């Protein structure tokens, strides 16, 4: 498996990246030139089963779009055994908050299968923010929407026992 063999036909890699970014709600409202540069800067990465992308306490400083494969977010449960909190699959985009600023991760992110991702670092993203200041409000709006969506989903799905854990959008 090599990510580059796919790049050997007539469509440039960057063009493919651009299409992928355009398909993500976080990036789609960005100005076209910003998207083009982002498409140029993003890199592809391949992971083997068991590879650790980041662990608790690290600053993840990256966002990932899963091209194919599966990533799992785990936390230390009782007796230090990892407990899977969420799984991410083809087409999932995670880490948009990591692009906006530094915070220590509360979970581990590991690859469960052979996984191929498109990834962007905060360093690269912050240069985009510098060059295109109009991008910042757009990304903040997207992040807020994401958080809102997340909590809305929890209100409807969480059992009443866990209601006391809700309220993040009111912070």
């Amino acid at each position, binding site marked *: 498996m090599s990510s580059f063999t796919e790049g050997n036909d007539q469509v440039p*890699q960057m063009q493919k990246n651009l299409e992928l970014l355009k398909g993500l709600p976080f990036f789609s409202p960005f100005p076209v030139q910003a998207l083009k540069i982002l498409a140029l800067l993003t890199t592809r*990465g391949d992971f083997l089963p068991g590879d650790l992308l980041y662990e608790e306490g*690290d600053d993840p400083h990256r966002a990932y779009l899963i091209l194919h494969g599966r990533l799992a977010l785990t936390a230390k449960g009782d007796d230090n055994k990892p407990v899977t909190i969420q799984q991410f699959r083809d087409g999932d985009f995670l880490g948009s908050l990591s692009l906006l600023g530094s915070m*220590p991760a509360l979970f581990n992110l590991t690859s469960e299968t052979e996984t191929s991702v498109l990834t962007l670092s905060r360093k690269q993203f912050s240069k985009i923010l510098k*060059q295109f200041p109009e991008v910042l409000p757009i990304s903040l709006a997207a992040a807020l929407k994401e958080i809102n969506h997340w909590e809305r989903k929890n209100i409807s799905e969480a059992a009443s026992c866990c209601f006391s854990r809700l309220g993040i959008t009111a912070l």
Partner: protein
Amino acid sequence: MAFKRNPKKKTGPNESTPLVTKRSLFYWAFSGNLKLQIILLFVIIFIVFTRVLPLEMQKRIVNEAIALRDVHSLILYCGIYLLAVTTTSLLKLIINYLQALIGERSMLAMRKDLYHHILNMPLGFFRNTQPGMVVSSLMTELSAAGTFAGQAFAVPVTNVLTLIAFAGYLISLHSNLAMATLLIYPIAVFVVPLLQKRANTANKRRVDLSRETSSQIAESISGIQEIQVHGAYQQENSKFDILVEKLKETRIRWSLFRFGIKTTNNYFVSLGPFIVFIYGGYLVMHGELALGSMVAFLSAQEKLYDPWKELIAFYQTYQDASIRYTRTMEYFDTPPEFPFEISVTTPQKLSNEIEVNDLFFQTSDGHALLKGVSFSLARGEHLAIVGFSGSGKSTLVQCIGKMYQYTGGSITIGGREVSSLSKTEIIENVGYISQNPFIFTGSIKENLLYAYQAMLPTASANQQSAENREEPDLDRMILVLQQAGLFVDVLRFGLDSFINPDDQKMIDTIIRIRMSFRENFGDRMRNYVEFFDQHSYHLNSSVSENIVFGTATNKKFGHHLLPENAQFRNFLRIEGLLRPLFDLGVELAEQAVDILGGIDTLDIFFEKSPVPADRLEECRHILNHLKKTPPSSLPPKEQTFLLSLALNFTPAIHTMTPLREDFKGTILSARDKFPQWCDKVAPGLFLFYDEKSYTHGQSILNNIFFGKIKSDLAHAQEKINQAIIHLLIEEDCMEQIASIGMHFQVGSTGDRLSGGQRQKLAIARVLIKQPGVIIMDEATSALDNKSQTRIQRLIETRWKKKRTVIAVIHRLDTISTFDKIAVMKTGKIVEWGTYSDLIDKKGILYELIYGRK
């Protein structure tokens, strides 16, 4: 007379020389230059004589030779005249040389001493001092003082003596006429200082303003990121504008007075001939003065002007230099808090228990930062200090490390009061690791040994050159790098380096490692490394690397020079590649202009661009040109440029343009034919990639891979590191690679290292000197989790009971392993005890960790 003549040497109080900032300007002219000054004095006396001689000859030529028509005397007097004038010029040259010599020597001494003094000044001074200001003080302001020091003796002595000699000569010619002309000078002496006083006021202000302006410039340049981020151009511009406007006005005032002095002086002096003509003419008419004497009088009168002018100029230089000098020296006139004495013997190791008793620290403007802190630590005990920001944590540890002088109470290390310990003893016994360590330009190793070598007796450190200073053995350095968690990074630097081409043993080892890498890790690493293969296109290499598939033995055939190499272009033409490459060049230029046109030239955007930022404009120009005319009409320089873009095209990096299958095929067939062509042109010109031989011109790592790394993602790097370290251990050459890596140049202020690497290097540089007391001021704040845990483990397992540790800590999850915890608030310790005690107590620490309940 208003100006100082014959300045006397100011000697320092008895044996010891005064503090550099307290020395007079004249100190520098004489101290260490006494011999030169004496030689100068003799030359000067001689020159005064040779200056007066021509005047007497003039008189004799007119009065004796010409009047008496004595050709013999004429030749004799003219001969003497010529000799005197020639000697004067020669002597003048010698005087100038001696002056310059003295000037430069004084400036050197001034700069050296002041620089040494500045490095020793209290840290508080640098909090509100801009580096730019220190630079301009040392380089610009002192140079005027240096020039002056060269003149300080020579100029006044020469000119006063000349003046006296001429005046004496004039009086001997005709005392009344002489008195009349000399009358002008006292008037000038009265007026000039008046003007000078006002010029001085303006000049003082100018020096201050210049200093302020340089500080302002330095500040904006250091803060350029903030300025650009916030778009604060307006504020910065106006701050600067106000200063330079003021500076302009002051300079104009200053110039006005300076030139005023010159003009006034010139005016008075030009009155001289007037008096000679009117009074002397009258005397000649009445037969009281010979015509020859009047000619000599006129000449002498003219000549009086030169030394006078020089004296006035000297007076101005003196005033200017002394103002610059005193203003500069006043600025730095703070004695070092802890003078650094030169020690010849190694200072003794202290026992490492620490007692702090009722410690107070007050800043110079009266803020109390520590208000009675007391605690004691036994040998090898570990203390974590936590607390709110501004609670005095850093101040406390900095007082213990003697970076600031405490204002009350006591600190003892091994029973000795810190304030009575010498700086050398502190350096020997206390290791201090700061939050934002400074890394110096140089290699990893130089930085690693920075503190270690500073600790060595000064004599040996000064006399020996940097290379053969005493250094710890390699194993010890490696151990320390491992403890600080920097070893793998250093290893990587080593792997990214090039090998000495003569080191056959190393080359053989690398080839062996290459084989076993391919065998043991080849499959697993396929995701991260792209191996070289004669029959497939290498996506992480450029087009020219793909064609040549080797390295040139002749520099003229280096990859960057191939586009303009006629022979190579000919090869491309034969292979039918020239045209497609031009097309590719145009395509790359188009893409780059489309995507990156109009973007600020931030490096990161251009990392993946085939066109460097500074050549984008050229691309746009070429593309415009191509709209109207065919490519063949482009000037050769631009054709070469397009070709260079194409030859540099690396598909894995320059993802904006695809690599077309047919093009790939043509390149691969060109690669196959290249060696034959090469043999025809010049056999041995290229060494081709060969799995069995070392490729010079590629890094050690690429040689081990026999390929290139694909991914810069962290997990890929880690896997590669693990595999390589495994192999290096197997071949027993890890130390060698590490030692190559230690020569990695860290760049200016360490900018080629990451924040974490810088901090690890700072930790390592303290570890290597093995101090009994280690102070860590948030020393691990820039480290990732793993590295932090590693340091934590080191503290816990290797230092417990051996080294006393005082750590200011921001991450509360790491403090449970410390023996004692101190919680600080507003300059006091508000909680003290073991971790479990304080948690059970549910006091402030509990609140800090678990939040307010």
